[in-house]
């Protein structure tokens, strides 16, 4: 038997020392190799991972569309999430985007807390020409050439009914996947919608600093990767690549050739947004004809009136400045209706959907006054007005959306698309508001005004609803247990440790025997 095979106690001191050195070296090398192997395996596990959704409703499973879109990204897209601790929608967005990132190395995700990392946040917010409101989430998709920016309201659907019982509003749906995938599709396609703002009729202007301009709208849309240009429509056809024409607060009328050009544009699936003010001689000379006649052709009646609503008038203002919180059923005003957000209008005229139904077109009234409001037609007797038989009695409609529907598709009810997923519908879309001031710089910050104009333009451009990805509905279990059921639950819960004690005693006494 060699000495090295003997137990340590029987070995001679030099041999033992040698053995110890060998053992220590082997142990050290083994440990180093094990650490390296551990690091290597985990590095690759970190880089290439897969997530499995075990929920029965597959709430954490991305749709096939999203997998295809993210998986086929060919150029890097940086996604920056501005959020803070405890912002639920921020956490959900990050969790969702983590799953996007797992599908493609081209997607780079970055989380920025503007409170903690002020300098980085300021630099990025300046680069994206946007602002951050504390306690919310803002998500930016940027591929270098263009970008899309989303706010908290763009991502969630809320149920406000618990507020009446003193509870917090609950999220009924998370639209993140539809919104984010839509943004990636847009960025990948390189499409940049062009919006033309008509000029030459006394319209509100994009570069007007007086407070009556559309700089606020410009900022709102600027974050959404669109091109905005002013356009003199007189004597011209609508340019080919036009995605939307906005007519904001014209004071003069449109000529017949201009209206014919608009008709041709709409017939080809064009989109128009009209923001029209009342025809008060003091402030405008926009009369019903020929514009009124032209709109009547699309089933829209433009009222020759000034809408007043004393029941909803703002304090210290006349009855012609009022808030509206009665909404129709339409994707444009759905977020406002869900969040019970009012919009504030000043000097508005009525816009009503006509009764005669033209086949293939739907008309939806979006906003209306309270039943105490009316459309005052005796404009020469302002401001002393009373509701008379000749007036349009309330509730008075203030905006109408028109949509042409392809024969095989249904109307856009917000949950489904009128066009097949991934394609824009071929039909025209138009919205006419009886007020332009709500979108002007000095009023766009009021209540839901910004959301209203933003939603209207997004609906007209068919953004965020192209993919047919439904919102994820979180499972919100509420246990409505009676007092008796609660006590039964407590008893059953208390019974388990008692059974453990009994089982322990049985084992103990059996062992003693």
């Amino acid at each position, binding site marked *: 038997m060699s000495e090295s095979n003997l137990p340590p106690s029987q070995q001679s001191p030099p041999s033992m020392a040698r053995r*110890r050195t060998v053992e220590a070296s082997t142990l050290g090398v083994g440990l180093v190799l094990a650490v390296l192997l551990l690091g290597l395996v985990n590095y690759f596990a970190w880089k290439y991972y897969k997530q499995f959704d075990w929920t029965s409703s597959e709430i954490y499973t991305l749709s096939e569309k999203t997998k295809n879109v993210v998986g086929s990204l060919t150029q890097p897209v940086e996604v920056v999430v501005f959020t803070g601790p405890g912002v639920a929608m921020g956490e959900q967005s990050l969790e969702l985007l983590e799953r996007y990132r797992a599908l493609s190395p081209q997607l780079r995700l970055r989380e920025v807390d503007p409170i903690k990392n002020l300098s980085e946040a300021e630099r990025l917010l300046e680069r994206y020409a946007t602002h951050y409101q504390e306690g919310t989430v803002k998500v930016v998709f940027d591929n270098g050439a263009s970008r899309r920016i989303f706010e908290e309201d763009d991502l969630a659907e809320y149920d406000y009914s618990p507020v009446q019982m003193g509870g917090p509003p609950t999220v009924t749906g998370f639209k993140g996947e539809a919104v984010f995938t839509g943004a990636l599709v847009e960025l990948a396609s390189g499409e940049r919608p062009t919006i033309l703002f008509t000029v030459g009729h006394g319209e509100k202007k994009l570069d007007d600093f007086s407070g009556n301009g559309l700089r606020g709208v410009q900022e709102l849309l600027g974050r959404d990767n669109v091109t905005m240009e002013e356009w003199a429509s007189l004597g011209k056809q609508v340019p080919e690549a036009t995605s939307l024409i906005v007519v904001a607060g014209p004071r003069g009328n449109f000529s017949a050739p201009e209206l014919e050009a608009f008709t041709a544009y709409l017939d080809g699936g064009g989109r128009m947004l009209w923001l029209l003010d009342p025809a008060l001689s003091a402030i405008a000379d926009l009369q019903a004809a020929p514009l009124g006649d032209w709109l009547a052709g699309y089933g829209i009646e433009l009222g020759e009136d000034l809408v007043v609503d004393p029941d909803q008038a703002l304090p210290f203002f006349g009855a012609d400045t009022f808030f509206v919180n009665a909404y129709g059923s339409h994707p444009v005003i759905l977020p406002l209706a869900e969040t019970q957000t009012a919009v504030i209008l000043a000097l508005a005229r009525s816009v009503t959907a006509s009764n005669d139904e033209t086949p293939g077109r739907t008309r939806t009234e979006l906003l209306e006054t309270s039943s105490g409001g009316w459309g005052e037609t005796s404009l020469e007797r302002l401001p002393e007005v009373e509701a008379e038989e000749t007036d349009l009695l309330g509730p008075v409609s203030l905006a109408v959306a028109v949509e042409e529907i392809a024969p095989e598709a249904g109307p856009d009810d917000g949950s489904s698309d009128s066009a097949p997923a991934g394609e824009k519908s071929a039909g025209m879309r138009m919205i006419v508001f009886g007020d332009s001031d709500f979108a002007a710089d000095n009023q766009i910050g009021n209540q839901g005004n910004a959301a209203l104009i933003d939603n209207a333009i997004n609906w007209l451009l068919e953004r965020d609803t192209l993919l047919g990805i439904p919102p994820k509905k979180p499972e919100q279990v509420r246990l*409505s247990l009676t007092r008796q059921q609660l006590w039964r639950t407590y008893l059953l819960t208390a019974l388990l440790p008692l059974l453990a004690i009994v089982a322990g005693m049985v084992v103990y006494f059996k062992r003693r025997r």
Partner: protein
Amino acid sequence: MSGILATLRRELCAYFFSPLAWALLTLLLVINGTIFALIISFLSDPRSAGGRPLDFFFSSSWVVLMFIVPLLTMRLISEERSSGSIEVLMTAAVTELQVVVGKYLAALLFYLFLWLPTLAYAAIVAGYSEIDWGTIASGYLGIFAAGAVFLAIGTLASSLARNQVVSGVITFAVVFFLFLVFGSLQSLVNSSVWKEFFAYLDVAGQMDDFARGVVDSRHLVFDLTTVIFLLFVTSRTLAAKKWR
């Protein structure tokens, strides 16, 4: 293999015939029962925002883990060392690795046995509302995975300390540290890469993912490789002591 099975059988008998095991089971059921009752009361309040009861339960199970794991592992090897029976074990026809794996598997099986009665909570909830068994399965997988890592830490601590109490305190401290430190570090750093790195090591965050029904390959690989590494280090520690 026979060496592992022999050690496993011996350790399991030691667990089940020890009064400490039943006291542990009672303690675990008292803590878990209290948490479960609180969750049920909270969700029965009409003002609450709602949520899945067992998601809350699984998310809060780390509190129980912190206390149970040191109690389960503190005697595994320390007891053998303080009583001197380790000498006998080491001269038997089993390798250090077989001893370590056998003891570890026994602790893991007993740990699973401790969680078994909590399935009754799922049955109780199923009586009052619809239940998502997929989420429950992933929640238990989370408890198993986190427990596996912490039991490996406890096994290593037990091999390092001769005194059982010292071994238990080391395990508790390390588990407590692991639960708190990586979550906190994530909120302290600004770099996305470091944030991801700490999230990867954050066992509490892992348990949240499992609790909501998401099974992530990163968590499973991290847990499995950490267990293998720790058991290897434990066996090497025992081997090194043999030659001192």
